[in-house]
């Protein structure tokens, strides 16, 4: 669908000036073929988003079905003027920023190792992907037990006198560690794909010119890998901003460790307050869209699969 705007200049550039009949029919067929998929997409993603937007303008609590009314932007004022929301928002930002930064560093290291591994390359790659293959909730449970005094080896070894999951700072740190452990392999995988883009000749030439390993990494590899890096960072940032399962399992949001997603879930599903909950969902949607926009517009991340021309 997106490609129509880009298809125009291509059509023009083959010198005919106008689109031929055959081309027109072909394009029409193309639209017809993808229409069912597009309609399904609109039905399953577009409609819920619009419905959530509609709900966010109402006072609508399932517990008080008779008191449903249109309240305009009241819910937005309530949520944006609320301490719990901002506490959750900053927790989310912190978890996102710290975990993505560390994941990037670790993922890059892992990618370099996997790329250069001489012995057992297949084994190294498989083993490093294991954390990503484990269901997050299952992994989170094992982290929770590990950090619970008496049953947990980590809690007993590192903080014999405390219960780290019951304090704000240490609980957040544990959430971040769990996130990093889980998704570093994913980051490494994307970065490794980027590493494959760097031609060996270029590195050899740089070495001939006297560039050391660090210079080769910063001056040759990183610029070549930029599209892959930005895609990896974009994906992970969006993912991390929606952090939910790790927090629910590890702390259930106690000690002010709720993320915005956990808060939205609590208000929507537990509290049955469709108005407030939908408002939060819409705000999260806006935040996620904003992050994606910043990456695409300011840093020039490309959508995966599109070539350089696709970027603007």
């Amino acid at each position: 669908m997106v490609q129509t705007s880009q298809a125009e200049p291509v059509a023009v550039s083959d010198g005919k000036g106008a689109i031929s009949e055959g081309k027109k029919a072909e394009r029409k067929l193309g639209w017809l073929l993808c229409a069912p998929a597009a309609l399904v997409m609109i039905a399953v993603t577009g409609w819920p988003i619009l419905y959530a937007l509609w709900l966010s303008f109402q006072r609508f609590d399932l517990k008080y079905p008779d008191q449903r009314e249109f309240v305009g932007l009241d819910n937005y004022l309530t949520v944006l003027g609320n301490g719990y929301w901002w506490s959750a928002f900053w927790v989310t930002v912190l978890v996102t920023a710290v975990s993505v930064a560390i994941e990037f560093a670790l993922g890059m290291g892992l990618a370099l190792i996997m790329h250069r591994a001489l012995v057992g390359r297949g084994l190294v790659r498989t083993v490093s992907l294991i954390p990503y293959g484990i269901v997050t909730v299952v992994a989170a449970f094992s982290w929770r037990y590990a950090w619970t005094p008496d049953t947990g080896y980590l809690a007993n070894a590192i903080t014999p006198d405390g219960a780290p999951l019951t304090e704000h700072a240490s609980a957040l740190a544990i959430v971040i560690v769990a996130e990093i452990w889980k998704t570093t392999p994913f980051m490494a995988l994307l970065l490794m794909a980027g590493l494959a883009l760097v031609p060996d000749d270029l590195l050899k030439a740089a070495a001939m010119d006297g560039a050391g390993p660090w210079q080769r990494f910063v001056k040759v590899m990183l610029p070549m890998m930029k599209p892959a890096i930005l895609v990896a960072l974009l994906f992970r940032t969006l993912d991390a901003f929606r952090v939910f399962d790790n927090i629910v399992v590890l702390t259930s949001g106690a000690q002010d460790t709720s993320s915005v997603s956990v808060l939205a879930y609590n208000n929507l599903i537990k509290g049955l307050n469709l108005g407030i909950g939908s408002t939060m969902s819409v705000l999260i949607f806006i935040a996620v869209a904003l992050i994606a926009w910043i990456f695409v517009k300011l840093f020039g991340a490309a959508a995966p699969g599109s070539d350089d021309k696709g970027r603007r």
Partner: protein
Amino acid sequence: MLGRGCDQQLGGPTVRVRRTRRAAVLGASLVCASVLTACVPASGANTVNLYSAPEENLQQNVDRCNAQAGGRYQIVYHKLPRDADGQREQMVRRLAAGDTGMDILYLDVTWTGEFAEANWIREWTGENKADAARGTLQGPLETATWQGKLYAAPKNTNVQLLWYRKDLVPEPPKTWAEMISTAQRLKQEGKPHWISFTGAQYEGLYVHFNTLVQSAGGQLISDDGKRAVVDASAVQALQALRDLGTAGVTSASMNNAKEDDARQEFETGQSAFEVNWPFVYPSMQEKKPDLARNVGWARLPGLLPGVPSKSTIGGANYAISSYSTKPDLAFDAAKCLRSPENQKFSAIKDGVPPTIESVYSDPEVAAEYPMRDTILEALKDPGVRSVTPAAQNVSTVLSNMLSPIAEIDPQRTADRMRTEVQNALDSKGVMP
């Protein structure tokens, strides 16, 4: 094919019923797969669907009722998730969608107001109401009442007791302060001294807080469930909780402990006291018989000297879904499930305290429940959490402000509570 399967279910012996039901379900799923119609798996006109928390021996009550009904109704027991939040969420989602597949609902005592106000459950009237109230203890009955109308029949109740080590303290402490100072003395003497307490940020913390507030003669929410009261007794209760949090007599994991964690902690032998429901008793008997011999029980310590505590009631009630297509059968089935005979069976087999007073004096119950007199005493002078549609929100807001208990600032926390509880009651504001 479906119809025949169901007919056979009525009369046939158990084994055959099983087989035909499986065949019917299989058949039904084939029909569903081939034709795109709304399909309900193998249920006859007299099937009553019971949605209840997992209880090990509940099926036997169901079977007994089905046998007694002689084909008039056939209860099918569907298990809800194990945790209360999961149970409520499943039922609420389906009810909000007007699901007709649920007939009898198992409601935690705090959900009555919410389900009634949302028009999800039917009122109990006339003969049904009289039946549900006959011989039922007043406290549990109140938990099933919303705005003067009965919306459920009490199935089982629960009160917390104080469990203490008779070999360490000859007499149970009468007040909260006494319990803490005794524990501190035991600590100095190098003896087991923990007070096992469920301090995690969840419903359980609200239960403790409500017990303390009502023990101090106060109230959190007005009787009509519309106004946050949070009076001076709340400040006292907050002080008591903070004192426990800062006394140095609780385990490190107290702030993350729920009922079962507290039970396990007590069973390690490092605790002198435990505030918990009676389910800890059979477990102790089975796993730590040596310890169990030395364990005594008492009503929870009070807050004011000379005034007995008011232990907050737990437990569950049976309600009938508004969307049920066979309410008459459902009411009858629910009455059967909570009959004195079945309550007695559940008390003995599953350890859940009955709501009908006469059951306590049954010799078989007496044997399984050596603490029955203490339970009954606490049940007759109970602390009841105010029935309100916003119970879940109130609980979430309160437990958030109560955790961790060591960081409570009594006066300030109480002031905040008044606003936030009021907001929760008005379904304004944000749940943490």
